[in-house]
């Protein structure tokens, strides 16, 4: 359905997207997980045909999007990160307008509008102008404008920011539902749980690069059976280095003054590690363990925590 090869894009000095390649199958929900500035929006924009890549190709249904943009647009639905609609018009008027623009009409359109208004809990408010909506309500409208015409390829750029948990759940459910009907979805987020929960496959992105791609299980394989320990305290890098060299089977992810992230088999190594710290007379303020999950994978790959 979607095939990206060697895609790159830079803005002035920033390499926003750096040689990424991937394939997304029909009906799959594919997630881009990455921190702010990772290049998620840039990638989505290029897939949507809104941004010209510096190099590389994007194919949708084996059609090169640069060669036949008009044909591909009809099958695409995009939910931009920034809200885009007409504030003076009501929710219903907006949905009608954007639906018609995508070629929908009549009963079909009205039914679809009713369905989604119900789904996102805006029933009863549909005839208020959007400028009277709260931020979260606007986000919901922004989302369903992209879903309305049942696109075959759905591009969602962090659609759940600022939405309460309940609505978020129903939005995720809509996306799942659409995917069951065959919609291919590309979803960007910096929310680990959403990625874990929703996506069939995930690409972990940082600084324009894809660090790893796979299903949740495949990604967790990267960290193996090991846990990740984050240790904070008053120690220098030298001291930390000294302690770690005494132990076997510990892999350093990040080592800074007063901060240490390591990958290890926690049940076996933690007691002796703590002893070593104690013996050196270094005080530990905090030690936390992360089970193998997407978060630890991210940590392992980037050496940083993914902040919300």
């Amino acid at each position: 359905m979607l095939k990206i090869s060697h895609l790159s894009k830079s803005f002035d000095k920033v390499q926003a997207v750096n040689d990424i390649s991937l394939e997304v199958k029909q009906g799959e929900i594919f997630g881009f997980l990455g921190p702010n500035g990772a290049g998620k929006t840039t990638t989505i924009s290029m897939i949507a045909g809104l941004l010209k890549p510096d190099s590389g190709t994007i194919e949708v249904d084996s059609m090169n999007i640069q060669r036949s943009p008009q044909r591909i647009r009809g099958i695409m639905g995009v939910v931009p990160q920034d809200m885009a609609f007409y504030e003076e018009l009501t929710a219903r008027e907006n949905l009608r307008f954007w639906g018609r623009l995508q070629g929908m009409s009549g009963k079909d359109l009205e039914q679809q509008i009713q369905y989604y208004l119900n789904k996102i809990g805006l029933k009863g408010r549909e005839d208020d102008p959007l400028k009277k909506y709260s931020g979260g309500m606007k986000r919901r409208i922004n989302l369903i404008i992209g879903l309305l015409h049942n696109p075959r390829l759905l591009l969602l750029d962090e659609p759940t920011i600022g939405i309460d948990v309940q609505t978020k759940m129903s939005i995720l459910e809509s996306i799942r539902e659409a995917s069951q009907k065959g919609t291919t979805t590309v979803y960007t987020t910096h929310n680990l749980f959403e990625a874990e929960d929703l996506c069939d496959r995930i690409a972990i992105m940082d600084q324009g690069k894809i660090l790893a791609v796979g299903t949740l299980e495949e990604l967790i394989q990267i960290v193996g059976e090991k846990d990740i320990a984050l240790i904070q305290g008053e120690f220098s890098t030298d001291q930390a280095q000294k302690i770690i060299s005494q132990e076997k089977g510990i892999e350093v992810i990040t080592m800074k003054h007063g901060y240490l992230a390591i990958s290890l088999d926690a049940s076996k190594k933690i007691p002796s590690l703590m002893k070593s710290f104690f013996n050196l007379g270094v005080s530990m303020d905090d030690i936390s363990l992360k089970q193998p999950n997407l978060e630890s994978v991210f940590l392992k790959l980037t050496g940083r925590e993914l902040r919300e």
Partner: protein
Amino acid sequence: MKRVLLLTGKDFRRKWKNPVVIVGFLLIPVVFTFLFGIIFGSSEENVLPSIKVLSVDQDQSLFSRLYLSTLTQGELKDMIDLQSVPTEEKARTLLNKGKASALMIIPSEFGDKIWAGETTQVLLVKNPSEQFLPQIAEEISDTTALLFSALFQVFSEEIDQIREFSEQSEIPDQIISSLSVKIKDRIQGIEKYVFPPVISLKQITQKKDSESQNNSLTVQSYILPAISIMFLMFICNIVFEDLLREKEKGTLLRMSISPLRISEFIWSKILAAVIIGVLCSLFLVILGAVVFSIGWGRTDILLLIVLCLNILIAGFIAILYTFIRTERQAGALLSSVIVVMALLGGSMTPISSFPLFIQKISRFTINYWGLEAFKKNITGEPMGQIWPIVLGMLGAGIIFAFISSLLLRNKLKRGLYR
């Protein structure tokens, strides 16, 4: 086309829901017309500066020259711009071309009849396409004719002396003007209406090529279209501002993910501008007819003028937008262009009060052509006179629209996608 209409409908709905600015812009011409009507309604000559009057002196006697000379003395000099033309035929062609408001013909027996003490006539031919300027000319010549007859009754003795003078074949101009000044000075304070006029003023209106409605151009029917054209441009700009705003707000970005083409987006704005402009114009036209009793002339022609004028305005504003990057630039450039055009094009002061070279520049303004069209229809000029203007406006408007749709397309695409 379906998508263009969809977008236009959307814009129309948005403006309908937020009409404050447009309504404001519509009220200004109405208020102006109302005020001008009050201020100048009774003494129309105040509105307009010197009146162009052509004179044909068929008599060439001392008295005819004296008479014409009195018309250019003192206050009258500011009001009447008298231009002597050798033959009546030539004068009438000039009048038909609209070069003057009236033509005054002094018949060949003018002097002889005065000598004989008989009533004599001055012929005043009024320009059919104008109404209130010729009226003033008429009043003035009327008054001077009265003065003149008074003169002969009061100063009959002096005139006898002048007669001897006139026996000579050639009288120098200086003598004529000094005499007329003298006469004017001495006549001041004399209640002119005490004396029955010797010269009666016979006035006829020049026959027109075809029959037509005979509406008059009143202060209101000049002011309302004049100021309205200016504000129609401001209203048009409100629609075009969205070109930039939709880009900024991301709705254009979202549209460009749909099957919509950017050129369709641009045409939808032009169409919306024309439709909103026409509706606003019709509102003003109807209001003008009902409140200010303006007789607009033939309705079918009026509608055509309104449509073509608004197409021209939309095309022109669209062209201006090809030079604009930000909304702030739009505000500054648009208002200065609109105001300067209004000044030069006669929306603020009648063009006839400008020096000749500025009058030539006036022809490059939308205001000038719009006003000409309205004026010609109001005064019932034949279609032959109005067609060229209407077609010119339409043609220029369409050309502008096409050029700008091409230029704006690239401009909107640039930097749209971040």
